[in-house]
Every structure is written in structure tokens, then in C-alpha cells.
């Protein structure tokens, strides 16, 4: 139905010829933007309703004094449903650590929460299909769990800023919302998020459409294909500065994949975009000493690169 809508506008109303470059690019642009915005508004709304039942205070209570392994798995899973914004990373980190959530478990949460986020999932699902979206969730959780366990094993508590351990933390009450309030919260959340990301989506889909229509087929096979061993680490390095623009990056990546970028490289790039960000590093510097910050980034980067190689090898 969406396809015929896009066809109608481009080929009937505007009168471009099917098969022409401009026609195909514009058709692709309209089809993708409409589809993505439909998906985004419905799913963000549903996710926000679910999230309103998992305030971070509740997550903290579930995770406090949990043992490693089981704690890491739970933390990574709760990372999906607990609302998280990197601007609250500091109070969240202190709240977790102070209430007895082990350091490694806290990191599993901090890694999974931004990486396995609804915007990235919707965009992946809409543009690559549900299988890729599921693979992304699975490997994202795995990266969060493994990286958290490794950080826990390294016993790096002394590389947390000293003042964190001395902090007096009050007992935060859990605000319970009724169903009506949850719907209101979800509506506002959806509008806020859409307002923030729509320009990136439009620009991303626009660039994607351009690549789709104008860049020759197989253009990237040589550089980003599965036979180039450097493609994955380079993709991860490129992903770091692109933080929080998952919405804009995914349409471009989809077009690049059409032109020969390998799937593992695509996944690694996406994970780097969402999980490794410079602004978040700057924020976390308030609670972590340099050494732990570097270990955190290093371990996550290595884990993501492994995921990239793995899927390039098996898919």
C-alpha cells in the first residue's frame, strides 16, 4: 500500500519516468520516510508505555546485591526497558553503585541501555527486516553482558572517582503512574523524540535515496565487503563520533549495504554509533577515572569488533 502511494506520487502526480534515476531515488525517499515515521510513532509510543512501568529506581532495586553473571544478564535485559538518557548517566551510575549494584553489573546496564534502544531497533526492522533487528538485539545484549562481566572480573572499583563512594544517597521514592498518566507520558515522550530526530531521519533517508539511485552497484564491495579485514575496525572508529544519530545513520547504512558493505560490518558500525559516544565519555568522566573509562571503551570496542567479524564470517 505504501509502495503504491509512493509510486502514485512520483510517477503519476510528478510525472517522473519509472526506472529513471531521479524517479527511483525520489520514490525510495518517499516510501522510506513515510514507512519509518509510521513505525517510529507507533512503536515509540508502545515502548514508552512499557517504560513508564520501569523507572530506574525500580531497576536499581532489582539489581542491587545481585551476583555477577545472573546480575549482568538481568542488567542487560533491564537496559532495554528502563528509560535512559545520557544526561542522567551520572546520577544513575551513583544511584546504582551506592545501592550495592556491583560495578560490572552497572556497566552491563550502561552498555545495553543506549545500544539496544527502540529507535535503532525500529529503523533496523523497517529497513533491514526483523531478522537483522533480532540479531542486533541478541548481539547487543551479548556485548553488554560479556563486557560487564569482564569489567567486574578486573576489580576496578578503585578507579571509580573517590567521591562516589562517600556520597549520601537518599531513598528515592518510586513514582507510580496510573494508566491514564502512562498514556500521557508516552504521548509526550513520542512527540519529544520525534521532534528531536525527524531532521536526521529525513537527511539520512535523503542521502540513502541518493546513494540508492546514483552510486553504482557493488561500489563498496572492495572496501567494505567481507574480504577486507580492516572494514570492521574502521567502521567502529567511524561510528564513535556519529553518536545519537542512529535514526539518520541507518538509512545511509542500508544504502551502503546494497552497494556491497558486509552485514557484520553494518552491525558493528551501528553498535559503535549507539554504544560508544564521546559526549557520554565526557559525562562519565565525572564518575570514572581515566583508566576505567579507557578500559570501558576498549572492552566494548573489542566486543563490537568481534561481533562484526563473527557475522561477516557466518552470514
Amino acid at each position, binding site marked *: 500500500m505504501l509502495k503504491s502511494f509512493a509510486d502514485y506520487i512520483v510517477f503519476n502526480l510528478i510525472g517522473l519516468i519509472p526506472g529513471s534515476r531521479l524517479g527511483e531515488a525520489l520514490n525510495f525517499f518517499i516510501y522510506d520516510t513515510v514507512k519509518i515515521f509510521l513505525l517510529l510513532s507507533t512503536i515509540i509510543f508502545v515502548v514508552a508505555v512499557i517504560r513508564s512501568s520501569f*523507572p*530506574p*529506581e525500580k531497576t*536499581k532495586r532489582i539489581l542491587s546485591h545481585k551476583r555477577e553473571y545472573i546480575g549482568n544478564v538481568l542488567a542487560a535485559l533491564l537496559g532495554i526497558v528502563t*528509560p*535512559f*538518557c545520557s*544526561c*542522567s548517566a*551520572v*546520577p*544513575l551510575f*551513583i*544511584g*546504582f553503585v*551506592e545501592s550495592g549494584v556491583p560495578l560490572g553489573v552497572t556497566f552491563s546496564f550502561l552498555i545495553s541501555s543506549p545500544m539496544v534502544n527502540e529507535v535503532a531497533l525500529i529503523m533496523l526492522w523497517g529497513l533491514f527486516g526483523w531478522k537483522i533487528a533480532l540479531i542486533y538485539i541478541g548481539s547487543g545484549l551479548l556485548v553488554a553482558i560479556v563486557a560487564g562481566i569482564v569489567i567486574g572480573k578486573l576489580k576496578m572499583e578503585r578507579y571509580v572517582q573517590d*567521591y562516589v563512594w562517600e*556520597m*549520601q*544517597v*537518599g*531513598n*528515592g*521514592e518510586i*513514582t507510580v503512574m496510573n494508566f491514564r498518566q502512562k498514556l500521557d*507520558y508516552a504521548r*509526550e*515522550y513520542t512527540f*519529544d523524540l520525534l521532534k528531536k530526530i525527524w531532521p536526521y531521519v529525513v537527511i539520512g533517508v535523503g542521502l540513502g535515496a541518493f546513494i540508492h539511485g546514483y552510486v553504482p552497484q557493488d561500489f563498496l564491495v572492495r572496501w567494505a565487503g567481507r574480504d577486507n579485514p580492516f572494514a570492521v575496525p574502521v567502521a567502529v572508529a567511524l561510528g564513535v563520533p556519529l553518536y545519537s544519530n542512529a535514526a539518520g545513520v541507518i538509512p545511509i547504512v542500508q544504502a551502503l549495504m546494497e552497494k556491497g558493505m558486509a552485514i557484520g560490518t553494518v552491525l558493528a558500525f551501528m553498535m559503535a554509533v549507539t554504544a560508544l559516544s564521546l559526549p557520554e565519555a565526557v559525562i562519565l568522566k*565525572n564518575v570514572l577515572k581515566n583508566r576505567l573509562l579507557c578500559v570501558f571503551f576498549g572492552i566494548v570496542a573489542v566486543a563490537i569488533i568481534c561481533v562484526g567479524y563473527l557475522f561477516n564470517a557466518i552470514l
Partner: protein
Amino acid sequence: MKIEILGTGCAKCKTLYENTKKALEASGKSAEVVKVEDIPSIMKYGVMSTPALVIDGQVKFSGKVASVAEISAML
């Protein structure tokens, strides 16, 4: 009445501050509105997601920007 806006200075915190001012003006009540930006003070309230609104030492909500109408109802 003392109203505190907890938050580390992000855009959302500013919006909440503005909304609170507006709600106060509309209600005609007088109150002292302060921004609390240092981490130890925020943590004292046990707030883990910012921004949060505190009225007379009691946390009203955290992790969202409430509308002017919502804040008015709490004053």
C-alpha cells in the same frame, strides 16, 4: 514554598524551569524557585533520572518535563 529543579544543566532541565515559572505566575502563588545542579545535592534526594521537581523537600516527579498544567496541579 520552596521549589527546586534538579538537573545537571541539560536542555530538558531548562524547559522544566521555564514551565515551573509559568505555572507559578499563572497560579499567583509566591515561591522561591532554585536550580540545583550539583551532583551531591541531587543524589541526596535519591533522584536517578533528571530533571526532577522538588517542592518543600518532597520529590514530585523525576525523569520528565512536566507541562505547565501538570505543575500547576502540584502547587
